[in-house]
């Protein structure tokens, strides 16, 4: 530690640049993983809030809620318990006088079923009438207020915002909860149609005549979700690998430059173990400093970012990223260990 700290203190520019590089890599990886996780969350936040296990859809809907319509006749064949709930989904554009237009996902739900019960209200109350809606907090961020009258698509009716709910996003769009009747109106469907799908909290739930799929599969089938996640995963993965190689190479070069000094110390009888420990300690100090500053910068960025940017952090993912970068430092320092152990003190003795 003594040699490691003294060298960093003396070679401020050199070590500052290396720490700077680790900071940038860390910052980039943290921000990308935050955006990736945040975007993934915005695809599924509403679904997660229902806490259901399975979804039943029309067999021809290709496992997509937005493409599915269940007729009343088909719905009647499914025996619903208190663990199931109908869902009607359609994309809408919401507008109110003096407010910006917002693209949203309308979800029609039944007031007597579990999804209605499980939705949490942050302000106002849940809809109790057909012309009432509960909307995601992002409406509030865009200037909408309780009591605002909203038109949905080009439909004639107006719907009053009676409540706000937090983190209700589906396919990266804010959710509007309303009645199944409104869903039919917005989808131009008659009373012969019951819902888009049936959600169930039972892992054994099966709907006769419908396609029943587990929640994980349903989420992966959300439009664009898998492609987006795979893209981000590859980006982060490649970035990590490149970062690891760059950091490891830097630390290797750094150690190789110090070999003449190490040769002198070996000639003086300083055990090789101390030199190896110094090298690894120094690498860890640099990486930990880089990680800490990178994390601080990320935190600062999150605080400065507008609310609309989907940034969210997952502790296990961050832990894996941090562990990976730390491991990189150790590996980079370990590669030249053999050279340190075999450093020849004779190389620095004069002729």
């Amino acid at each position, binding site marked *: 530690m*003594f*040699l490691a700290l*003294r*060298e960093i*203190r*003396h*070679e401020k520019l050199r070590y500052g640049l290396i720490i700077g590089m680790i900071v940038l890599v860390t910052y980039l990886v943290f921000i990308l993983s935050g955006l990736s996780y945040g975007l993934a969350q915005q695809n599924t936040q509403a679904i997660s809030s229902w806490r259901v296990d399975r979804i039943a859809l029309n067999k021809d809907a290709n496992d997509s809620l937005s493409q599915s319509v269940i007729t009343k006749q088909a719905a009647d064949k499914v025996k619903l318990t208190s663990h199931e709930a109908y869902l009607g989904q359609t994309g809408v554009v919401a507008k109110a006088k003096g407010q910006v237009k917002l693209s949203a996902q309308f979800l029609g739900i039944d007031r007597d079923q579990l999804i209605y019960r499980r939705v949490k209200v942050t302000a106002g109350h849940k809809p109790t009438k057909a012309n009432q809606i509960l909307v995601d907090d992002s409406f509030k961020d865009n200037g909408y207020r309780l009591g605002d009258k909203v038109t949905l698509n080009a439909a004639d009716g107006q719907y009053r915002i009676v409540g706000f709910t937090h983190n209700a996003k589906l396919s990266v769009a804010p959710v509007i909860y309303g009645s199944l009747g409104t869903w039919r109106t917005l989808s131009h469907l008659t009373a012969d149609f019951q819902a888009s799908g049936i959600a169930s909290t039972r892992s054994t739930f099966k709907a006769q005549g419908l396609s029943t799929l587990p929640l994980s599969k349903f989420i992966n089938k959300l439009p664009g979700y898998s492609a987006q996640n795979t893209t981000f995963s590859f980006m982060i993965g490649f970035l990590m690998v490149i970062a690891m190689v760059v950091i490891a190479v830097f630390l290797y070069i750094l150690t190789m430059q110090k070999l*003449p*000094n190490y*040769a*002198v*110390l*070996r*000639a*003086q*009888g*300083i*055990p*090789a173990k*101390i030199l190896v420990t110094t090298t690894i300690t120094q690498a860890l100090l640099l990486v930990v400093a880089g990680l800490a500053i990178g994390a601080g910068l990320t935190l600062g960025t999150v605080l400065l970012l507008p609310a609309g940017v989907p940034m969210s952090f997952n502790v296990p993912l961050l832990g894996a990223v941090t562990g990976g970068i730390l491991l990189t430092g150790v590996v980079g320092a370990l590669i030249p260990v053999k050279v340190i152990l075999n450093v020849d*003190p*004779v190389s*620095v*003795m*004069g*002729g």
Partner: protein
Amino acid sequence: MPALALQHVNKVFGHATNEVTVLNDVNFEAVSGEVSLVIGPSGSGKSTFLTIAGGIQTPTSGSIVVQGQELDDISGKARDALRLNRIGFILQAYNLVPYLTVRDQFTLVDRVKPKGNLNASALRHLLEQLGIAALIDQYPAELSGGQTQRVAIARALYQNPDIVLADEPTAALDSARVKVVGQLLHDLAKEHNKAIVVVTHDLRLQEFADRTYAIMDGQMTLN
């Protein structure tokens, strides 16, 4: 018993047609309380002799005995310990760690070898004797060649070794400093019963030596 003895030591580099004999049947003894000088021109094998005597390099044949202990019989780690505790090296080049101040050069020794080093007042006296007490917070890059060499001498002596092996310790010094260093090594041998071995081509050191060896083309003779 000599503090350091080399018996029939040979060192050959290369193979077959490229074979070069650097040390040829070298016999040498350094006794506690004496300064032994090994004088020879550049390329005569002085440094090879010194590295072999200090256990940094192994001979092709022959034996090295340090305070009754044959180096062939001990492990690499034990040789490290021997160099750290018994032998002080004054190297010709790259003597100091560039990112440590003069003070920290001594602190490093304390960290690796906490016991048996000079105490604070003895160190201060040594630094004053060598004229480098004012340089205690300087980095090696801020020192002249002569100052660097003197710090390196102080660093080696700070370990309070029984044997001091010095490679051209006066190469960068003017005549006045040569006298100071020569006298210091002489006093160290006499007053503290150290065995001092100096390899050099600086004949000015001869007046401080108790015995002088000459080395030429790998062959050593006692004058």
